[in-house]
């Protein structure tokens, strides 16, 4: 899409030594552990943020922490940039390589090492997929809470890198709140263990800083995550409102009532139309905005909680209330929401924004989003986590039309600035990556950014870990 999203210029000396480097890496991992053939590198040239593509120097597929350590030690010695990668589902370009970088992909480290119900923890390798953790413990009545939309594919290592969220984090928190420990390989190959099957790692909270550091502080090879007992049941209810304002006011009052549902999802009219056409979920087509509110508990508890929530919705003039009467109906309600990105992708290319705003600003920012997109002649659909103010405007455009692509990017940037100006932030769960890097100065003052960069440099003084991401390329400090 864009040439404004520049990467650091490749180091010509590294490019010139490519054959030697590939040979050395093969010595470390064995030839089957290294991908260097141009055609085989193509799947690694981008991630879920498909607007930018770069072929890496090579891809390494380690099987053990020791191999990751050996790789990093080697790369640090020769100042070779390293880009960690899980399943490559990043929506902000966090895993997109640069031409002189070695991609270290953790997908072969995909074993669940230990499930410990007495201590409600699981120890997994970084390449384990998010969903497979819940699957492994489900029969025993447990689950792993963070549930990003890509949970079928995305890895726990990537989730830690981006501090991923999901629809249900309103109640259960995001990755950082569910992470007990990691095994981390530092830029020079040093292996450290932070935390474990206990709460509150002692000393400075390095675990808290590593989570969400977008692969810049080291490579996580193992994680200890918190398991939670599955609720007895869960039930989503669909609420159709005439306007976004009344839906948003209802969200505020539900939260104000002291009941925090598991999820409060919001869809605007364009999103309702797109999702209904795709999923036939029975969404009310006359509604201007729709909420999916999910509660958990026993049948009686859910009845009682929903009665309270429905009463609040009625005070806000709800037009349609559709309670799921069966597991199938519940699945249908979620199917529409969960397929929102896919359904949108069928009718147009889109970019998905991820700003978060205070709840009181939701309506104003939504209106601002419409105005911005209209001024660029673009359509926009909004599906988002209303309970925590994490907005996901989907800006529709044609990726093959350079003019429209430029407008889409400009509109996206304006929307994110709008979020910041309303007291919010650039990204709630997708990460800064390459996509929002150059907007960082809109959210942070120079001193704020410099302090973050110095912290980064304490972990990686050579700036070789995922170096083109997160921090603007100019003005970097060590």
């Amino acid at each position: 899409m864009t040439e404004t999203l520049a990467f650091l210029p490749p180091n010509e000396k590294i490019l010139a030594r490519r054959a030697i480097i590939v040979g050395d890496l093969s010595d470390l991992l064995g030839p089957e552990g290294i991908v260097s053939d141009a055609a085989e590198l193509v799947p690694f040239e981008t991630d879920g943020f498909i607007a930018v593509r770069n072929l890496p120097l090579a891809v390494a597929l380690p099987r053990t922490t020791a191999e990751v350590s050996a790789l990093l030690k080697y790369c640090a010695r020769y100042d070779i940039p390293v880009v960690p990668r899980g399943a490559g589902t990043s929506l902000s370009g966090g895993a997109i390589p640069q031409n002189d970088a070695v991609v270290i992909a953790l997908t072969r480290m995909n074993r669940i090492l230990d499930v410990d119900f007495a201590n409600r923890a699981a120890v997994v390798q970084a390449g384990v997929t998010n969903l497979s953790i819940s699957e492994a413990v489900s029969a025993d009545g447990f689950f792993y809470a963070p549930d990003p939309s890509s949970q079928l594919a995305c890895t726990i290592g990537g989730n830690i890198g981006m501090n991923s969220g999901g629809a249900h984090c309103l109640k259960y928190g995001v990755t950082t709140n569910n992470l007990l420990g990691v095994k981390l390989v530092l830029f020079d190959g040093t292996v450290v263990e932070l935390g474990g099957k206990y709460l509150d790692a002692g000393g400075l909270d390095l675990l808290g800083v590593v989570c969400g550091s977008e692969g810049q502080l080291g490579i996580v090879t193992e994680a200890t995550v918190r398991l939670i007992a599955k609720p007895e049941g869960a039930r989503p209810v669909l609420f159709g409102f005439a306007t976004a304002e009344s839906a948003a006011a209802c969200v505020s009052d539900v939260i104000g009532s002291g009941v925090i549902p598991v999820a409060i999802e919001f869809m605007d009219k364009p999103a309702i139309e797109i999702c209904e056409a795709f999923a036939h979920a029975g969404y009310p087509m006359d509604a201007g905005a729709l909420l999916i509110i999910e509660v958990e508990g026993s049948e009686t508890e859910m009845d009682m909680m929903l009665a309270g929530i429905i009463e609040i919705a009625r005070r806000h003039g709800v037009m349609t209330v559709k309670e799921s009467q069966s597991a199938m109906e519940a699945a249908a309600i979620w199917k529409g929401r969960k397929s929102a990105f896919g359904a949108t992708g069928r009718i147009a290319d889109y970019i998905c924004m991820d700003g978060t705003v205070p709840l009181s600003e939701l309506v104003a920012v939504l209106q601002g989003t419409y105005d911005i997109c209209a001024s660029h002649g673009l359509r926009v659909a909004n599906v988002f986590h209303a309970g925590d103010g994490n907005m996901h405007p989907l800006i529709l455009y044609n990726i093959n039309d350079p003019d429209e692509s430029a407008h889409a990017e400009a509109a996206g940037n304006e929307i994110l600035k709008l979020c910041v100006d309303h007291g919010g932030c650039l990204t709630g769960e997708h990460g800064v990556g390459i996509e929002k890097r150059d907007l960082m100065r809109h959210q942070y003052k120079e001193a704020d950014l410099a302090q973050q960069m110095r912290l980064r440099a304490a972990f990686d003084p050579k700036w070789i870990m995922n170096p083109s991401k997160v921090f603007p390329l100019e003005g970097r400090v060590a």
Partner: protein
Amino acid sequence: MLTPFTESDAISLVKTAARSNLTLEIRGGGTKAGLGRPVETTEILSTSELKGITAYNPAEMVMTAKSGTPLSEVVAVAAEHRQGLAFEPVNYRGIYGSDGEPTIGGTFACNLSGPRRFQAGAARDHLLGLRFVNGLGEVIQAGGRVMKNVTGLDLPKLMAGSHGTLGLMTELTFKVLPLPETSATIVLAGMDEAMATQAMAEALAMPVEVSGAAHLPESCRARFLGGALPGPGTTLLRLEGLGFSVKERATKLVAAFSKVASVSQLNHQQSASLWQEIRDVKPFHADGRERPLWKISTAPSMGHQILSALRLQTGVDGYLDWQGGLLWLRMEAAPEAELVRDLVKQAGGHATLVRAIDEDRAAIPAFQPETPAVAALSGRIREKFDPAGMFNPGRMQNAR
């Protein structure tokens, strides 16, 4: 005592201190000054005049307050809207016999959390953003006032629990969540610690959202709730939430455990008092003898094993919180640091020497010693925030 009234005052003071090579002990209410290695500085900097709640919109469940704001004020104002700090901030005045008023800054700087920790998260999980003055005299803004934020590095996590060693917090933004409508505690009497640990794990595996799980051995059971709890040995399971939920879930817990223990129930009032006593370590409050107090965080299945092992070797009393993963230990005489730390090292976790006489505090690291690699990394981080080592030097005992 240096007492800034505004953030600008604080900046000037820090800059002056940096120019004159002064060191500063940062003090909020001073109620937890006994925690960590004793700090000897050229000046004390008090946050007592950096006070007041600066923003609070209950519908957003977020509050912003200056660092020296009394914790009691935060709690009272939030309570007017039936909200509160879900991590149950602790009150260590009893432990230290200190007076003064705990502040919101000190609460987050120490990252200390109460019995709900395993369900609701630690203090650090509730800190959304902050402003602080670093060792260069720069104001740094980190995080924000929204619930979800992955924009850049998570500095609030690092600042929480840094015991004032990285900078001077001036303003904090944190979650205030709905207070539970009611609560109840299921009391299981007559279990030993191993049985109790198993029972707590079983309760946490049930879909009833237990929000407190503690075991009080017979040795200290009578010092809670005025001796009203049944023994020998009391295991406690707390439920919180809407009235009908608590009632229904209590019935399930009673049914699950009535075969293995004698089961009774505490009402909301009794439950609230009891968990406050557990939170504030009531049985081991200062009594003029300053006997050593350890706080151990380990895997829930290991807490009781550490306690049993210690009992065989030394005079000790203790109880379990956090499903068995938080072990409070009061030693009869010496801190027995080597013994305690060896056991904790084997079990996995960390031991904090919370209270000891000054001589022991100077000689024994208050926090679990780190591996050389982690200690080196932490040292590099400190230099990036406070190059001259001005703030609370040595409090976290890391070599500089």
